[in-house]
């Protein structure tokens, strides 16, 4: 045994450890290859081909699909609507989430029940969220319009989902309603990690509530806010269930965001090549938005 200790050099041990690490990574790499790299390759290949659901890769068409989406009058507006949806819904969830997290932090006896209730929207499947809100916002028989009829009898029903801009606003509010608990969770957890000595020192120095918040709390929690912002923005860009169930992209095309537009192209007209090109355009948009924000986020964390 002493022999093996003497003959097993540090270099060999290190190499064995490295190989062990690589082998352990194999399942993960395989999974990534299957789930991410293969579909990405298929997507890029489809975008440069004439592909339908029934007959994929019938012809190589070079940049024809991209040229088409530049002038189809559908893709760019849908990208714009994705932005129009993602940014307000993210900011709304973040701001409201932050306020609630601060309140929870301040309230000493908040209790488990409050926390569970606050998490309920996040625990509800997105499709159910969409179905419930669609029923509540219905012009006839919907909860909100019924309340309106009680307050102002005989009034015209308000078309939350059937008119613009209320359709987009409704989607933003419902999405924020569902994801605010996510923001609350992360921000509340971050607030718990803030060092109490700093607050004690501030108190001793006679700092007021606003001063404490702006000079101490906000700067300390800014890295977490940036993280939550990026995560929520990614989630907002991925919205589909709400649009599919609540508005079907309408009225007209007013809530046809990019993900829904791609769905229409791929699974209603079965033009997989065009849908792949649209997906790549969407990917470019999301990258342009997320990458700089992520860089800012990383810098904030490093400074922290």
């Amino acid at each position: 045994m002493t022999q093996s200790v003497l003959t097993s050099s540090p270099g060999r041990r290190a190499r064995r450890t490295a190989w062990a690490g690589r082998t352990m990574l194999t399942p993960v790499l395989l999974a990534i290859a299957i789930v991410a790299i293969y579909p990405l390759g298929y997507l890029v290949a489809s975008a440069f081909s004439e592909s339908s659901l029934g007959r994929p890769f019938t012809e190589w068409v070079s940049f024809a699909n991209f040229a088409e989406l530049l002038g189809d009058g559908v893709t760019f507006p849908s990208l714009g609507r994705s932005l129009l949806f993602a940014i307000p819904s993210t900011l709304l969830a973040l701001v409201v989430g932050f306020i609630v997290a601060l309140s929870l932090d301040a309230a000493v006896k908040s209790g488990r029940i409050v926390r569970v209730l606050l998490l309920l929207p996040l625990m509800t499947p997105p499709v159910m969220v969409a179905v419930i809100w669609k029923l509540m916002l219905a012009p006839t028989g919907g909860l909100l319009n019924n309340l309106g009829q009680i307050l102002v009898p005989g009034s015209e029903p308000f078309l939350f989902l059937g008119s613009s801009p209320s359709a987009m606003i409704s989607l933003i509010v419902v999405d924020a309603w569902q994801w605010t608990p996510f923001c609350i969770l992360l921000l509340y957890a971050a607030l718990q990690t803030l060092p109490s000595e700093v607050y004690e020192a501030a108190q001793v120095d006679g700092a007021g509530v606003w001063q404490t918040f702006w000079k101490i709390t906000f700067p300390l929690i800014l890295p977490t806010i940036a993280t939550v912002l990026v995560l929520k923005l990614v989630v907002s860009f991925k919205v589909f269930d709400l649009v599919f169930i609540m508005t079907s992209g309408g009225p007209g095309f007013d809530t046809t965001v990019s993900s829904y537009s791609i769905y229409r192209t791929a699974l209603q007209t079965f033009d997989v090549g065009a849908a792949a090109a649209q997906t790549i355009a969407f990917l470019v948009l999301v990258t342009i938005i997320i990458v700089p924000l992520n860089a800012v986020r990383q810098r904030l964390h490093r400074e922290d």
Partner: protein
Amino acid sequence: MSAQRRTSFRSSRPRVAATLAALTAAGLALAGCAGGSGGGADGDKTLKVLIAAPQEGAGKILEADFEKETGAKVEVEVVPYDQIQTKAILDAQSGTNNYDVIQYWYTSVGALAESGAIEDITEWVDGSAEIDAPDFIQSIFGPYTQYEGKTYGLPIDGDMHVLFYNKEILERNGVEVPTTWEEYTAAAEKITAAEKANGIYGSAILGAKSAFNIGSSFFNRLATMIPGTIDPEMPQLNTPEAVEAAQAMLDVAPYALPSPLEIGFEQALPQFLSGNVAMIEFWTDLGTFAQDPEQSKVVDKWGVAPLPIGPKGHVAGALDAGWAMGISPNASDKDLAKEFVAFASSKATNEKLITTTGSGVDPIRTSTLESAKYKEFAPAVAAVAAEVFPNAQSWPTSPEAPEMLQSLNDNLALMLQGSLTAEQAMSQTWDAWQKLKG
């Protein structure tokens, strides 16, 4: 000693972990390979049938009855109606071959045939006296099953709209059952003005963009306004009657249940059954729902008539929705699959389904349309159905039909939203259709 034990343990840990990781990777790879052999035990007579959600009731009856009659096991998979085409094409194209029998929306017959998702069964149908093809209502048989002169399926559900009305609402507003679209709009306007404060509206217009809704509202009007019949290859949107049909939708929209763009058949039906809507264009099985006290507040208070017509049109109707059954080219037991399709479209089965509440099935054969049992089960509906089914007119059925319908639905929705005039909606759709064909 302890140092040696520590070192040897430390040196064997990576080895153990490496072995575990390698085994896991191998296991995953094997699992991936094993999945490709496909489902369905050999020698086991299990028929897998793809059914659309609206016919779930019929699907259950077919499953039970066919099993009883033949002893073969049937597995019915119910999917939302707008996913049938995708599932059928992917099943065939990916080689999964999960389904033996496929229920399809008739407008996709061209697309499915073109992509090889359903089989050419012309010889079998022509050669089988049992199937009795001439008994099928010909205005249904053609659009539902034919592509390039060959037969790809058999009809199982008719699906036409007729005009249902609430007798009480019409009477207390002094309104006659409309026979023209102009009268229809005037009636809706009068009733809505008088009763909307009570949440009662003159009409419910299906205007939701999803397949059967806004399209049905349009084709109902087109079918009853054009002098001839709708051309399934290229419906005549470039005619003044098409513009009038679109305009008729626009004219009645302000007096319809709010708001047409949000109303699909799932929203409209309960409103009519609750007595909140005076007139609605709907499938004939509304007549059975309306007489079911469990879900209807208008039992015996409703009536049914053919759809109104336009100045140059005639009593007719459009095939709104409408289902047929085909066989997958990769069905494991084609004879059994054919037996099932013949069974599902047979006179006995169709008669049973059209006289069963909740089946979601309408007449497909002349013999069942005129059967005494049907007339007894739904006398009012049967009388109107006998008048309009032989004059049924088809939506597009070519391989480009899915794109054509999406383009039409989009422009109609923009029209109802106020972004396009009726004329623009028709001309934009017509132009888009020419590009698709071109």
